[in-house]
Structure formats: C-alpha cells, structure tokens
C-alpha cells in the first residue's frame, strides 16, 4: 500500500535556527576581532635627568636632539641647526658617523610629545645604538 506520494511537490526545508546561530556567531567574532585593528608597538628608550645628560655630554659628546620652540612652532634642533620634520631629522642623523656614543633627546614641558617621540624614532631609524630621553632642566 502506498500511503503518500513523497516525490511530487516536495519542499526543501532550510534550517533557519542553526543558520541564525552561525550568522550571529560570525558577527560577534568579527566585532571582537575588529578591536585588534590598531597595531601597537613599543619604542624603547633610556632615561636620564639633566645632570647625567650634561655629565655624559662632557664625557662622550653624544648627539643631542632638542625639541624647541622655533619661529613657526616647535622644531627639532641638532647642533645649532633647526629642522622642521622628522624625515629631515632622520636624514641629518644618518649622516653622523659616530653612532656608538648614542643620542640624547631633550624636550621642554611645553613641547608636544609627538615631536619628542618622533625624535626618538628618528634616532632609532638613523641607527643610533642607544637613545636616551632627558627632560630639560630649565623647565622644572
């Protein structure tokens, strides 16, 4: 006896519950991972106070990069020369032959941290083995 005709008019049933499950899980997954988009790195630097910087400067004559207020805002200063951009500073620092003695970066209280950290990065990019950050004494 044939009770039902299963071949004719059969429907494809989509399992919506499991699909919604997976879709929501994927949504949450991408929402969580999107927090990782900003890649953070680190810039290692030595620290020194003004007295140690002056002493070191007398002993080894290292390069001192200062962040000072220029005519049109804050600029970098290396050996009496004022430099406006980090890229230019890197080029100038690359030309210095003695990189073993390291470099000092000094910034006043009013100087933007962006420039101070940019100066440290420029010293690293130029190949200085040791970069030290030292606050300026005249700002205390």
């Amino acid at each position, binding site marked *: 006896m044939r009770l039902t005709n299963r071949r004719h008019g059969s429907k494809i049933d989509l399992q919506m519950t499991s699909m919604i499950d997976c879709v929501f899980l994927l949504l*949450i997954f991408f929402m969580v991972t999107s927090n990782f988009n*900003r890649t953070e790195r*680190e810039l290692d630097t030595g*620290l020194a106070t003004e007295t140690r910087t002056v002493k070191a400067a007398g002993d080894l004559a290292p390069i001192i990069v200062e962040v000072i207020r220029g005519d049109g805002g804050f600029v970098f200063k290396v050996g009496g020369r004022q430099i406006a951009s980090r890229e230019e500073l890197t080029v100038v620092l690359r030309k210095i032959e003695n990189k073993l003695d390291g470099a000092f970066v000094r*910034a006043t*209280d*009013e100087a933007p*941290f*962006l420039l101070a950290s940019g100066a440290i990065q420029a010293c690293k990019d130029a190949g200085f083995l040791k970069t030290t950050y030292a606050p300026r004494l005249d700002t205390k």
Partner: protein
Amino acid sequence: MRLAKRHGTKLEINMTPMIDVTFLLLIFFMTVNQVSKANRERMPLPPLAGSHDQEDAELIINIDRENNIIVSPQFISLSELASLLAEKIAGANNDPSRLTVLVRVHREADCRMVNQVVNLLDDKFKINRINLGVEVPR
C-alpha cells in the same frame, strides 16, 4: 523475522553544533585575552613604527591629553605613582632593572607630565629604561 535492513546506512556528523561550540570557545578565549589588555587605556598614541613588538610590562602608565596619569584604570597622582612604583620594585627583589615599565602617552599631549614621570623614575627609583607605546600608522 528480520525487522530492518542495515544496508545503506550513513554515518552523518552534524556540523552545526560543532561550529557553534568552536566559535563560542574562540570568542571566549579572545575575550579573556582582551581582559589582560585592560590596563592599556584606549587612546590614540603617536603614529610611529616603533622599535619592537609589544611585550608584557609589569607596570603600564597611561598619560592622557590633559596630563592625567591613569594606571589600571584609575586616575592617580604623581605621589600615588611613586608609592605604586615602590611596591612594584619591592616585589621585584628591590632590583629596578627587573621592572618593565611601559609609558603610553596621548599623541596630542605635551611633555609636562612625561618629564615629571621620567624625573621620578630616573631620580628616585633608578629606573633608566622604559618602553614608549606607539601606534603603527595605517
């Protein structure tokens, strides 16, 4: 009497619950991993390439645009930071060189608080090496 035929039976693995569980575990571990990064205040850092990838730091000092010090994740004063540093150094067998300090500064901040923190670290606690947090430019 033979009731049922055993020929032609298929072993079916239901993939849907397996994917469900796998994703749940994945999200769980990713969320737990993020809790360990809660000490890192969400703020824009200087857009620089840096010198190395992130390391685990014993102390993360955040300095926001208004020169406030934020440590896990509470606003603290410079004197409170000094007490915290003393505690951490005592925990590192009184050896400041064993303490890894990460300083994260808002990209629009000035150097005022950074300079005070540096003076505190170097002068009082003889910590003469720190890591500065930077953000890889897009």
